């Protein structure tokens, strides 16, 4: 039986290959989901830890514990905590990669024995850093000894910062009258050396040596002997334990558990104030929030392509069986039972699935890497490899895929093995209504999808809220979109035969023989083609839908980011001021010295530069506060030349608004919500006041909906509810604002001809300019593209699209070539009756138009319509928290071109195969086919 099966497979090698391809893709996609999910989440977790470190300059895994024991008071807690510090990483389930204990006496005033500094009062901490020797280098003098000196002096080392700050001298002796030594005399220390970190970037120095500028370090052994143990109750001890957890080795699948442990730890009342692990907690918090959304989104996005693959397998399996009817009846005539035939096909499917399992997994890994490198829809380019692992989950998914595939391809077997050949033929003769048509499944599916659509349309706000709360895309929404495509596609199958029949009835008399035959072929055997047609509709529609989703979310996010950023580079230079002085002398007026602005124009890469002063203000009318908002003070000419994009967001072109603003120094442009909510009109006066209490009056010269960087409403999550707050905008002339608000640091906006920001940093370093912030549009955009959610979405949609193209092409080709082969005898008859080769070709092309091309065009239509309906809603999931711009539907015509080029190539291959087959056809040979 096994050999028979192999023979059978060899005989039907093309169909068997199709089944195999379908199986391999199914395994690869199914196993690819957990592989990609895990790998990208791991990358995201690691990235977020790194980002935290970069942003805050602190190791993200730092856990800090502090305790104080005051002359015996809280000594037990102190010791308990000290013990706990050594195992806190175990408690949190993470590896420890560094441990530093800084135990010291409370500040004590020391008096130097040196004349030069005699009388100088120095408040110092005498303490220890655990394992200091192996993490520091003595740069002058020598390390303390671990024994008490003979003269009873404690040897101590200090950092360079302390040396400078406290003006220590090597060998200097300092005595502390408030701290007694073991004999009850004032404690004396001697500075023996100056140290620095032996290695830069050593985690040991989570507190940099510079921060220990009033500490002197003594040997831990000496310190413990003198101030701890049974002598502990005589002193006040302060301790800070720095534990570096190896958060980078944390595995993403453990993140949720890790977060729970951290939360549990921090919730314990007794520890709540003395343990902090901000980075660890924050990153995990954020990660766990996103993880759920990413998991769900990636899964939802894969379902349609999995369903299509399943449908493909089902279709090919059905095709194979319908071609093997004679073999089946032969087997049956030789006494094979239904069970044996089912077993035969089961074995065949199992063998194919087995091969697919072995080859699908490596393909899955490869696909993951492709997804991981996607930068946009159908674009790849990120070099960073994903570390893909074969977890148990991967095998589970692949296994389930295999089982589903084997069962699915077996379904048609039951249909064909149970019925006699006569029955099948009879059934073929009259195209009976299919079950789904009798049950009106098409109408029901479309109806449910439309209901879903209207339901979701009415709940947009709710959707937005749930997204803000970190919920993933509502699976029902995506399901509703897929159901819509399916339902309408099936509806088409119901209507298409009626259309063809109508057309036939109208033109019946005047049709050419070829046209006549093709109409009849389509009408009478249409039912057989329905699955292929549905498949074509689904693939084309889903292809367009996926492309639109991917393009739209990315394009909108990019436009929004451009809007919020403003221009290529937004920098804030460091302004010198008397701020520190004013802090101590509040009566003094604060002044800033404005750095030279013209220097920016001299940077070759800068096209134009603009000063933009932004400050939060209260908008007032008289004494009444209308609301809070932001003032943008600009120089209109500079601004107009520098701002990037967004010129046409408002009713008029940006230029016109700027022109109006420049006509009067007091002119302001304000946000439209001041008109809508407070009835402001052109020419009205408003006052805006900053936190310092300075007020400026302006006259309204225009209303704006959008202004680069301005967010009209702020949605905040307060508790469970999303609260929408209005935000107001005042655009004023810079000179006017500088007059009213004094000169304060403004942003410098730079439009550059160089996307990379390196030139800027180089220029700043070369000229020794200091900047407190540099924001680059380029890196903001890059952030979107590397965002796990965006990237995963893009990658999966791209992959789905490619698989769809492949299935569409293979499915269509196979179907046509087989259907031609099946009819070779018939073509022989046609030829014998005097039909020309061209007429036969014409007939086949007609058939392709009636079924294939019509289905493809309809699929295109469904794709566009469903995109228009559902993409705006799906998009919400990807919208930034600060989504300002109206979200528009983006379709890249290049995608459509790609889709249709593939289809066109496929059709051309079909037609080429047709022409070749028909040209090579010998009537006499074709007719002989029927003689046996």
């Amino acid at each position, binding site marked *: 039986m096994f050999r028979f099966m192999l023979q059978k497979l060899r005989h039907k090698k093309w169909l068997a290959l199709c089944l195999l391809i379908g199986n391999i893709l199914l395994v690869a996609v199914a196993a690819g989901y957990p592989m990609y999910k895990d790998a990208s989440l791991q990358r995201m977790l690691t990235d977020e830890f790194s980002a935290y470190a970069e942003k805050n300059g602190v190791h993200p895994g730092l856990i800090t514990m502090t305790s104080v024991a005051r002359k015996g008071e809280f000594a037990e807690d102190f010791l308990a905590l000290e013990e706990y510090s050594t195992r806190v990483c175990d408690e949190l389930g993470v590896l420890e990669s560094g441990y530093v204990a800084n135990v010291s006496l409370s500040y004590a005033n020391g008096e130097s024995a040196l004349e030069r500094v005699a009388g100088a009062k120095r408040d110092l901490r005498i303490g220890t850093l655990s394992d200091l020797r192996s993490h520091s280098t003595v740069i002058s003098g020598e390390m303390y000894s671990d024994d008490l000196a003979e003269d009873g002096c404690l040897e101590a080392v200090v950092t360079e910062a302390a040396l400078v700050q406290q003006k220590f001298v090597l060998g200097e002796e300092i005595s502390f009258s408030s701290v007694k030594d073991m004999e009850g005399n004032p404690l004396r220390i001697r500075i023996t050396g100056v140290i620095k970190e032996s290695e830069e970037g050593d985690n040991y120095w989570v507190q940099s040596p510079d921060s220990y500028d009033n500490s002197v370090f003594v040997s831990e052994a000496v310190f413990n002997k003198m101030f701890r143990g049974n002598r502990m109750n005589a002193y006040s001890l302060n301790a800070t334990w720095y534990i570096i957890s190896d958060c980078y080795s944390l595995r993403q699948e453990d993140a949720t558990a890790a977060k729970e442990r951290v939360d549990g730890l921090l919730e314990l009342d007794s520890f709540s104030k003395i343990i902090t692990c901000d980075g660890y907690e924050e990153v995990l918090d954020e990660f766990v929030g996103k993880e759920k959304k990413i998991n769900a989104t990636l899964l939802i996005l894969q379902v349609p392509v999995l369903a299509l693959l399943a449908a493909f397998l089902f279709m090919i399996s059905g095709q194979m069986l319908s071609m093997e009817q004679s073999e089946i009846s032969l087997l049956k005539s030789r006494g094979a039972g239904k069970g044996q035939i089912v077993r035969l096909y089961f074995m065949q499917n199992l063998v194919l699935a087995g091969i697919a399992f072995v080859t699908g997994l490596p393909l899955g890994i490869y696909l993951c890497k492709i997804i991981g490198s996607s930068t946009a829809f159908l674009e790849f380019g990120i070099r960073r490899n994903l570390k893909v692992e074969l977890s148990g989950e991967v095998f589970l998914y692949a296994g389930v895929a295999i089982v589903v595939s084997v069962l699915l391809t077996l379904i048609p077997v039951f249909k064909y093995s149970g019925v006699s050949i006569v029955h099948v033929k*009879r059934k073929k003769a009259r195209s009976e209504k299919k079950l789904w048509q009798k049950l009106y499944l098409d109408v029901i599916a479309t109806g449910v999808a439309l209901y879903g659509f209207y339901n979701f349309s009415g709940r947009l706000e709710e959707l937005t809220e749930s997204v803000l709360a970190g919920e993933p895309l509502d699976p029902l929404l995506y399901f509703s979109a897929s159901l819509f495509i399916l339902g309408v596609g099936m509806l088409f199958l119901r209507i298409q035969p009626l259309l063809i029949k109508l057309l036939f009835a109208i033109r019946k008399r005047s049709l*050419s023989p070829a046209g006549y035959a093709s109409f*009849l*072929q389509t009408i009478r055997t249409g039912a057989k083609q329905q699955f292929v047609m549905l498949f074509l509709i689904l693939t084309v529609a889903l292809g367009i839908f996926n492309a639109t989703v991917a393009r739209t979310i990315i394009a909108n996010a990019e436009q929004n980011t451009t809007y919020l950023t403003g221009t290529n580079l937004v920098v804030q230079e460091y302004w010198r001021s008397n701020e520190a002085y004013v802090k101590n002398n509040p009566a003094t007026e604060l002044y800033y010295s404005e750095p030279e602005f013209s220097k920016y124009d001299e940077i070759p890469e800068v096209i134009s530069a603009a000063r933009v002063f932004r400050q939060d203000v209260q908008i007032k009318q008289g004494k009444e506060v209308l609301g809070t908002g932001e003032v943008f003070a600009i120089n209109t000419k500079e601004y107009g030349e520098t701002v990037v994009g967004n010129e046409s967001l408002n009713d008029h072109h940006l230029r016109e608004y700027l022109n109006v603003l420049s006509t009067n120094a007091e002119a302001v442009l304000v946000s439209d919500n001041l008109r809508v909510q407070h009835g402001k009109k052109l020419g009205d006066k408003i006052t805006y006041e900053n936190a310092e209490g300075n007020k400026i009056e302006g006259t309204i010269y225009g209303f704006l909906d959008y202004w680069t960087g301005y967010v009209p409403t702020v949605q905040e999550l307060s508790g469970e509810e999303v609260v929408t707050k209005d935000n107001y905008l005042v655009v004023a002339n810079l000179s006017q604002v500088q007059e009213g608000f004094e000169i304060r640091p403004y942003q410098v906006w730079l439009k550059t001809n160089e996307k990379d920001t390196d030139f800027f940093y180089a220029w700043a370093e070369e000229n020794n300019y200091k900047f407190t912030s540099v924001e680059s549009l380029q890196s903001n955009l890059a952030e979107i593209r590397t965002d796990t959610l965006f990237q995963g979405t893009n990658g999966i949609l791209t992959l789905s699209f490619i698989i769809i193209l492949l299935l569409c092409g293979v499915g269509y080709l196979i179907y046509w070539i087989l259907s031609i082969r099946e009819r070779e005898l018939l073509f022989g*008859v046609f030829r*014998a*009756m*005097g039909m020309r080769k061209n007429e036969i070709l014409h007939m086949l092309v007609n058939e392709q138009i009636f079924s294939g091309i019509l289905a493809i065009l309809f699929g295109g239509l469904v794709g566009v319509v469903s995109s228009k309906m559902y993409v705006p809603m799906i998009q919400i999931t990807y919208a930034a928290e600060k989504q300002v711009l109206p979200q528009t539907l983006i379709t890249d015509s290049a995608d459509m071109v790609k889709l249709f080029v593939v289809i066109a190539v496929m059709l051309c291959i079909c037609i080429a195969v047709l022409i070749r087959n028909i040209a090579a056809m010998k009537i006499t040979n074709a*007719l002989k086919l029927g003689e046996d």
Partner: protein
Amino acid sequence: MEYMIETKNLNRIFPVTGGEFHALKDISIQIPKKSLTILKGRSGSGKTTLMNILGALDRPTTGTLLFEGQDIGAYSEKQRELLRRKEVGFVFQSVSLIPMMSAYENVEFSLRLAGIKEGRRERVEECLKLVGLGNRMEHMPQEMSGGEQQRVAIARALAHRPKVIFADEPTAELDTATAAAVMKLFRDLVEKEDVTIIMTTHDVGLMSAGTLSYELEDGAVKTDAVQE
């Protein structure tokens, strides 16, 4: 007398691996108009090959083939197609109806191919009644028995009033009674429809049913024009 079909020294040679196969050897036959000519012979004797050449489905390697005195051996593919459409009808051994067309449509299709536009319905009905299937016109081929299908095929071969009908083993798959009925139909047609019928058979019992018969053996004519 002008013959419907006349051949002079027809040869048909098929290239086969390692040489040639001489399927027809110097066939010279004359088929008069309004005759029912039977080509006899065992399978492999070359009768189907001869028939295919006579019906302009295949070309002779050498020799002359006259169709109503015209040398159709020199015809272009297009002329041959036209000949097949208008002047010739075929009935094949295995059932050769177009499966997606009903009995009526199958017959009508040959009229369409012959370019006949007027009086199609009447002619189709007439032909189907002639073969005794006036009451089964709307049936699909799959819903009919082998004999019924063969009769539809005959009606189709007849409908466009061809000069010659070629029938290749038309009775091979039929039971004796049905086969006899088909033969009777052929004889009736020759009389009523002014048509020449050439058929092949290996069935000894039927060999005397025609007006003329040739027997072929190994690609050559064994017994010449036996008048029945």
